[in-house]
Structure formats: C-alpha cells, structure tokens
C-alpha cells in the first residue's frame, strides 16, 4: 500500500496595481488556511510553495483593495493579480492592507526604511516640493546636514558614504541647489529603500547606507498625463503603453522658474542706487523609464535621467560667473526567467556627474571643472528553493571609473595668459557575492552572505572580503529579536571639508597614500507588534567603527594640484547609538515616532607634517547630533481632506567659533586700517541651539470633470522658529568715526514660516 505524500507545487506570479499596472513590491500573498504566505520582491514577483488541492489565495498591499482568488493546484502554476486601489492615487491616506507590519516583524532584514512616493506626497514639503530624500531624514538614524539640505548622514557616516542607486545606476550627487532639493522627481519614483545597516551582500562600495530608488514603469493600459504647478517649480509626466500593452513608458520632467521672477525683479531695480542683481538660478531634470516584454521569459527595462543646475551671475562691471553641474545616467536591464523560481537580472549602466565653473571678466576667462564617469555591468541571479526555505542570490558587478579632478584653464583673449592643469585618474571596481536567506525553522531565520570586492587604479590594487550576516529569532507571533553584522569597503571618496554637500566636492579614487575606507557595523534589535497588529515598535542599538577616513589639511590647495593626495589627512571614526521607532500604517490616522540617541566621533592624529585635525584629539564632526526626535502624523479627515504634520527636534550641530583675535596691520599698501583676525582653536567645540520645526500639510481633493486633481497646501516651519544656520561675528562701528567699537555674535537662520500651494493633476 502506498501512502502518497502530499505533492508540493510552486505558485509563482506577479502582483500589479490595477490602475497603473505598476508592479507592487512588498505585497502580501498568503493562504490563510495553511498559514503560508510570502511577499513580492522588488520586481513584484513572488514564489509560494503549496500542496496540491484547492486554496484561497489572498493578495493584499497597503492602499489597495485585497483580492482573493480560488485556485486549484495540480502543478507549478502562475498567477497574475491586479489590485484595485483602495482610493484614488492622489492624496488619499492608505487604509487597509494586512501584513505589512507583520512582514517587518518577520523579516531578517532590519535597519531598513521603505518609502513610497505616495506616502511622501502626503507629507508637508519645503516650498511645496515633495522630496523623498528629505522625507528619509524623518526616519530614525538618519540625520540631515543642515537646514534645507538633502545630504544624508546615516548612523554617523558622512554624506559620501551613501550609495545612491536609481534602478541600479549610481547617482553621485543626489542634490539640486546645494542640497536644498534632491534629484528625485516624485512623479517618476515608485519607492525608495534605505538600508542603514545589515547590508545585503548584493550591495557594496559605500560604508554607511544604501539608498535604492526604483522608478515607476508607467501605465500599460492607457496614456496618462500628470503633473503639478507649484510655487517654485512645475512638473509634467507622460506615461503610457508600448506595443499594445507589451510594454510601457514614463517620461517626467521638472523645472524651477524663480529665475524668471528674479530677472523681472532685477529689471525693475536696475536704475536704483544700490542695485545688486539677484543671481540667476534654476534646475531642471528629466526622468525616463521604459519596459518591454520580449517574450514569456524575458523583459527589458530602460532607465534614463538628466539633470542640470545652473547658477549664473552677471554684473555691469563685465564680470560673468556661470556655475553648472548635474548628473546624467542611463541603465538597461534584462530580466530572464529560467524557471519559475530562478531568474537572472543583468544591468548595464553609465553615469556621469560633472560641474563646471566659468568666470569671465573683460579679457580674462577662467574655467574650473571636475567630472566622474562610470561604466558598469552587473548580473544578479536569484533562486528560491522548492520548499521556499532558501532564497539564494549570487552575482557579480564590474565598474570602470574615470575621474577628471580639478581641471583648470585660464586664458585671456589676446592669449597673453594661457595655462591649465588637468588631472585624470581611472579605477576599476569589482564585486562578487553569494548569499542565502535560510529559514531554518519557524523560530530562526538566517541571512548570511559573503562579498568579495576589489579595486584597481593604475598603480595600486586593493581587495577585501566583506562578510554579511543577519539573524532573526521569533520569540512569539508578535515579538522577534534580530541582529546583524556587516563589513564594508569603500574605494572611491568624496573629499569635502564642509558639513554641507557642495557641488564642488571632489570624487577621488583610492591610490598611493589614499587607502580604501573600511567599516564594520553590528546592530541588534527588538521588534514588537502591538495593538492587534496595528503598531510596530522597534528598538535597535548599533555600533560602527570606520578606518581610513579622509579629510583635508587646513588650507589645502584643491585646484591646479597635480598631487592632490598630499593634501589629505587620514583618521578613524566611530558611531554608536540607539533608535526607537513606533509606527502605525493602518487606519485613518497613520504615522510614526522615532527617537535616536547617537554619538559620532572622529580622530585624525598628527601626520604629514601637520598637527592633525584638532591637534590629534578626538572631536565631533558637525553632523554629530545627540538627540533626534521626529513625530509624523497623517490623518484622513474625510474622503477629500487629508491632514499631515511633522515635528522634528534635533540637538544642536557642532561648530567652530573663534576663541580670540589679533590685530593685523599688513604691509604698506595692504590694508588702510588694521583688521581683526579670528583665532580658531579646537574644532567643533561649540554647539548651536537645538533645531526644532513643525510642518503642516493639507491635501484637498478636487472634483474636476476629467481625471483627478488636488490642491496641496504646505506650511514649512509653522511656528516660525529661528533655527540656527550659522553664527558669525559682526563688527560694531561708531557711526561718526567709523571706528570699531566692539564685536557682537549674530545667528543667521535660513527659513522662516514658508507657506506654499501646489496644484496637482492627473488625466
């Protein structure tokens, strides 16, 4: 007599949104009667082992209506599900969606934040400009660099230690206007994942974070136009199907236009006495995404981005200053499905970041430029075992970097003056990895992997082994413990000596005295599902230590320097802290509260003929902020009104203020009067006042005849707090004699209360 064992088959498929036909990563696919379930991956695909028989499969995702399908499993099967949205795309707070908090509880992946453009669009924004990177700054463990900047300092890491990817292509400077806005157009973005620790083995090359941005694919059904008109910029996006629904495309563009206003203001003021023209500034960017289904097993995706910032200034004295910078990138990905549980993604990408400063004054012109260009190829294989207990990943990546560092060209019309300097470096960076996400039993899950990375730059070769481990132990259905460890190498460095991200910061390869940066991070945490699954409370403690950190010597000569590495100093960094995070994702009121207590320190000992930084003593970088509290609340007042508010409190930034001064006369001919020269002692020993701010937002859904539209109102800094941007010292003068009578400390703030209105539409 034979006892037939229950045959196991695999149900695979893709979950998409019914309205836009976009894939839905992170959607829940479950069979409640079997207590079996899984979540869709970044491509919206899932794989679920099921026994033969009839089953009810429930597919759900935040913001969409759940769909139940009854299927009869007799062999490996494919299921394509489309979820209708719970409400319209624009402006409704997400309502039901079982399982998302539960998934967060169950996954081994900790130290990660997931943000969708839909969520970001509901939050109040500076000047009404929705910004995903700035929204990430509202999550615990993520510090912003300064008022209005979008540079991210994750767990004490500097802003160049973030790997910013757009569909697997690297973005070198994700900021417009010195960090005031990020380069990501929310109309084009599907979601952003921010990894703060526990980095999966497929990522490498930066120490502190991975920011993985995925663009939207565009609707497969019909052509749609959407956009918005705002206070300082406008956006327009067009999407639609390709080849009768076999593919789709999305093109989204943005441009600011306050240069139009400033030029008008300049024209009006031209005649007046103390006329000083307001400089021109604008930025524009363009995103493109297209995909096409080649066959049952193959799909190709194309991504493109072009952005540029222009800052120009012209004076009557014939002085012409033009500063231009931007990223351009393109990526082509081919996804091939070998079998229901085995697929391969191969991506080729190119990215370039450059800036150019040109000065012209009468006969003389002076140009400064810097570029970094990458050509990259990577291949990633993913395999889900039949019993779904293993998810194996393996892959390889190779990038060719070209660095054009500090190119200088000075000339005069009559060619009396003509000289230049141009330094170019190249580097080849590679990585090889393998990892396994192993569900050992119903209590233990382990994700372990190894990455081998290397870098070759002309004269030198470097390499490293990067182990990555993460574990999860389920104490109960509502409580799990997690821990992770990651070792990271970084081979290219952004050399900057300021706290903000300036477009003139230089990307530099490891070579000669510049060794690769290296960091190790351990983190451990507890996740607790409360209130019947409505709230998730997470507490995470981390410790990170980094070597071969880079900074500049005082008074370093950055341009026209064929020997730039001699200007660098090397040191160590440490960061440790605790992050507490409470979030609610369902219901009419959603949001989160995050509190981080963190320390960041650096030490650069005496070296290379200098006394090091801060005389070799441990010091705090400017972005060391002891306490960081954010409270974000979104509330659906009625089907047409959504309210949101966010409150931020951070301890003051560290800064260097002068201790003393001395009088300097200079030689005959130099200064007419003696001047006071400040003396700066140790670095960053002074703390600015704490930063706090309340932003309020309101989204009001209109009822137009065609399509959808809404009005988004935003109030930035609602109670008009004068947050310190920097402190300087002003000279007090006797009005009659013009003699200096003393000095006074003054604090400058950047933004008062700023209200804004944006009109968004969609057809």
């Amino acid at each position, binding site marked *: 007599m034979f006892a037939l064992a229950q045959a196991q088959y695999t149900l695979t498929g893709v979950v998409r949104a019914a309205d836009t036909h976009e894939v839905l990563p992170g959607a829940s696919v479950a069979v409640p009667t079997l207590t079996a379930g899984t979540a869709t991956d970044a491509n919206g695909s899932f794989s679920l082992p099921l026994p033969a028989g009839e089953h009810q499969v429930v597919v759900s995702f935040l913001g969409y209506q759940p769909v139940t399908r009854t299927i009869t499993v007799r062999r490996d099967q494919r299921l394509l599900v489309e979820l209708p949205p719970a409400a319209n795309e624009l402006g409704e707070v997400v309502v039901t969606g079982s399982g998302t908090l539960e998934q967060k509880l169950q996954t081994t992946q900790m130290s990660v934040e997931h943000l969708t453009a839909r969520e970001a669009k509901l939050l109040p924004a500076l000047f009404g400009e929705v910004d995903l990177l700035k929204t990430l700054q509202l999550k615990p463990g993520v510090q912003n660099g300064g008022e209005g900047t979008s540079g991210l300092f994750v767990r004490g890491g500097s802003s160049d230690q973030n790997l910013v990817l757009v569909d697997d292509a690297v973005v070198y400077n994700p900021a417009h206007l010195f960090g005031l806005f990020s380069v990501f157009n929310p109309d084009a973005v599907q979601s952003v994942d921010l990894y703060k620790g526990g980095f999966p083995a497929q990522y490498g090359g930066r120490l502190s974070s991975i920011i993985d941005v995925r663009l939207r694919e565009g609707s497969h059904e019909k052509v749609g136009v959407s956009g918005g008109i705002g206070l300082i910029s406008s956006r327009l996006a067009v999407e639609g199907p390709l080849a009768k629904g076999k593919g789709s495309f999305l093109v989204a563009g943005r441009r600011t236009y306050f240069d139009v206003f*400033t030029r008008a203001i300049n024209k009006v003021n031209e005649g007046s006495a103390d006329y000083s023209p*307001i400089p021109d500034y604008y930025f524009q960017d363009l995103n493109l995404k297209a995909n096409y289904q080649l066959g049952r097993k193959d799909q190709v995706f194309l991504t493109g981005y072009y952005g540029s910032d222009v800052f120009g*200034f012209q004076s009557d*004295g*014939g*002085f012409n*200053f033009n500063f231009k910078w931007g990223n351009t990138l393109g990526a082509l990905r081919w996804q091939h499905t070998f079998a229901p549980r085995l697929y391969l993604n191969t991506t080729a990408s190119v990215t370039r970041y450059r800036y150019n400063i040109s*000065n012209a004054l*009468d*006969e*003389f012109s*002076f140009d*400064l430029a810097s570029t970094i260009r990458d050509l990259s190829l990577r291949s990633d294989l993913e395999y889900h075992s039949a019993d779904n207990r293993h998810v194996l990943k393996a892959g390889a990546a190779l990038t060719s970097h070209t660095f054009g560092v500090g190119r200088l060209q000075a000339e*005069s019309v009559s060619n*009396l*003056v003509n*000289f*230049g300097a141009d330094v170019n470096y190249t580097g080849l960076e590679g990585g090889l990895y393998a990892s396994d996400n192993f569900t050992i039993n119903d209590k233990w899950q382990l994700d372990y992997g190894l990455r081998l990375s290397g870098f070759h730059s002309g004269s030198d070769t470097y390499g490293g082994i990067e182990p990555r481990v993460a574990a999860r132990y389920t104490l109960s259905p509502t409580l799990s413990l997690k821990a992770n460890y990651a070792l990271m190498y970084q081979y290219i460095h952004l050399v900057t*000596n*300021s706290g903000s991200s300036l477009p*003139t910061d230089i990307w530099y390869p490891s070579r000669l005295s510049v060794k690769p940066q290296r960091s190790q991070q351990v983190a451990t945490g507890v996740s607790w599902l409360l209130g019947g699954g409505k709230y998730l409370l997470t507490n995470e403690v981390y410790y990170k230590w980094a070597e071969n950190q880079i900074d500049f010597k*005082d*008074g*370093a000569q950055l*341009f*026209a320097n064929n020997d730039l590495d001699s200007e660098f100093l090397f040191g160590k960094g440490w960061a440790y802290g605790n992050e507490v995070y409470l979030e609610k994702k369902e219901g009419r009121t959603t949001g989160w509260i995050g509190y981080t207590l963190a320390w960041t320190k650096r030490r650069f000992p005496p070296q290379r003929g200098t006394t090091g930084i801060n005389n070799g003593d441990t010091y705090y970088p400017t972005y060391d902020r002891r306490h960081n509290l954010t409270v974000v609340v979104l509330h659906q007042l009625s089907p047409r009104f959504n309210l949101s508010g966010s409150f931020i409190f951070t301890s003051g930034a560290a800064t*260097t*203020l*002068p*201790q*003393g*001064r*001395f*009088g*300097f*006369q200079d*030689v*005959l*001919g*130099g*200064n*007419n009067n*003696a001047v006071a*020269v*400040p*003396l*700066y*002692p140790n670095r960053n020993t*002074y703390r600015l006042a704490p930063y706090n701010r309340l932003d309020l937002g309101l989204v009001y859904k209109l009822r137009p005849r065609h399509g959808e539209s809404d009005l988004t109102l935003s109030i930035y800094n609602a109670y008009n707090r*004068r947050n310190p941007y920097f*402190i*300087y*010292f002003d000279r007090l003068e006797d009005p009659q004699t013009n*003699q200096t009578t*003393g000095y*006074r*400390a*003054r*604090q*400058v703030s950047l933004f008062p209360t700023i209200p804004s209105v944006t009109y968004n539409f969609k057809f």
Partner: protein
Amino acid sequence: MRYFRHRRVAGLLLSMLAPTLLDGCGSLQQDIDVVLPFGPSQLVVEAYLEPNALPRITVSETQPYLAPVELPIVTDATVVLTRANGIHDTLFYAPDIDRVTRKAYTHIGRRRLTARPGDTFGLEVYDTQGRRLTGTTTMPAAVPIQKVEWRFNNETGEQRKAYVLTTFQDAAGIGDAYRLMVHRRFLTRDPEVEYTVQDRLTDGQSITLGTSYDFNPNDTLIVSLFHLDTPYYNFLQSVQDARSANNNPFAQPSGVKSTVTGGVGIFTVLSVQRQNIILRE
C-alpha cells in the same frame, strides 16, 4: 588670476545668495550671547624687515574675541633681532605711529638693515610673563618687474577704461608666490587691485598678471610686486581664510599659519618692487 579655492567659491556663492536670503527676511538674523572660552593670551608679532631701512616691528597680544576694542600693547616685551652676520641687536621699545605710512610700531632698531637674497635673520621676543616667541626667515631673491603695460578699451569719455598688465620672470623652483597691488596715487589708500598667486603651474616662466578695466586715462598708478616665500604666502592665505570663515557656513575654519613659534604672527624680509606709471594714451 584669482585661483578660486574651494572655500572661497562657496563663500562667493553664499555672498551672492545671502543678499537674496537675508534681504527679504531681515529678522532672520538675531543677536545672541555666546560664551567663548579664551586660553592664555599669546604674543603677536608683525615684523617685516626691509633692506636699507631701520628694522621696525609691532608686538601685541591676542585678546578674547568679544573683548572691548582697545590696543593690546605689550609694555614689557624685549625684542632681539639676529642679523645675517650673527650679531644680536636688541630693539628699542618706542611705540609710535609712522606719520607717513600710518602704521603703528612698538620696537625700532638703531641701525639700518643690510640684507641680500639668501641672508637669514632670527627674531626672539620675550616678556616678563614668561611668554617667548621665536622665528627665522631668509630673504627671497629679488624679482624685478620686467614691464608694465596698459590697454584701453574702445569706449570714449566716461566709459573709456584701461587694464594694466605686469610682467615678471618667476624665480626658479616651486614655492614662490607673488602679491600684486595697484594703487591710485598713494600707497596709504586701499589698493584698487590686490591679489596673490603661486607659481605652481608657471614655475620659472615669464608671468603676466592683469587687472580688469578699472582705470581711467591719465591715472597715476603705483604697481607693487611682492615676492613671497612659501611660509609668508601660507600666512597671508590663512589670515584671509580665517577672516572669511567668519561669514561662511560652508567653510571649515582653520588656524592662522604663523611663521613664528611660541606665538602668532609673521616674521619675514620684504622683497618688493614698485613702479610708477601714468596712463597716457
């Protein structure tokens, strides 16, 4: 040519943004009280030696930044200058303001200085409080001005302006710097044009420094070319950086690079060439 340094680019950018940002919202600046810790006061010296002139130096001390503005004269300092031939010369304490140049000096020597390029001098300043400052310097080679030319633009009347070109031969070896100043009529006025360049890219070559269309026909100008050695150049740059770091949130303030130890300041031998020109058509 101005070599825009990293921080100065940022400073320039901010100084352009600042009027926009601060004008419309004047109340975004506010006075605050800060407590600035001040360590012990240090000796400050400005000593520019000139060949064939009496050595005159200025000794003062550092003060807390927010201290009331008053002349920090050090009354008990002794200054010893070691000449090129090894003789120690104690300077006299005689605080005075030169009527012509309007510069203040505290100590003066009695014998004129003989200095040739390559001569090394030493300085020692000490006071009764136990503070002691020392320094050495070597006179740089003389770099004569080869020629000064001027070109007019094509305008007439009020719009007719000229720029001035100064040509000289860079001394061999990297590490030289040059400070160009152009004054209208008097050296005691603020210069019309003033900047400093290094010879990093133009070592040993003929260098031409220019100005913009700043000058009118028949202007009487004094062109001064200072030849600086690397320590003096670093001192001037660091003083400028420290002063501009005050208003610049992007800058990383750094210390002044004195050429003396035990205190703050500059001890150097001036190598300057001047030429008077009248901008005739």
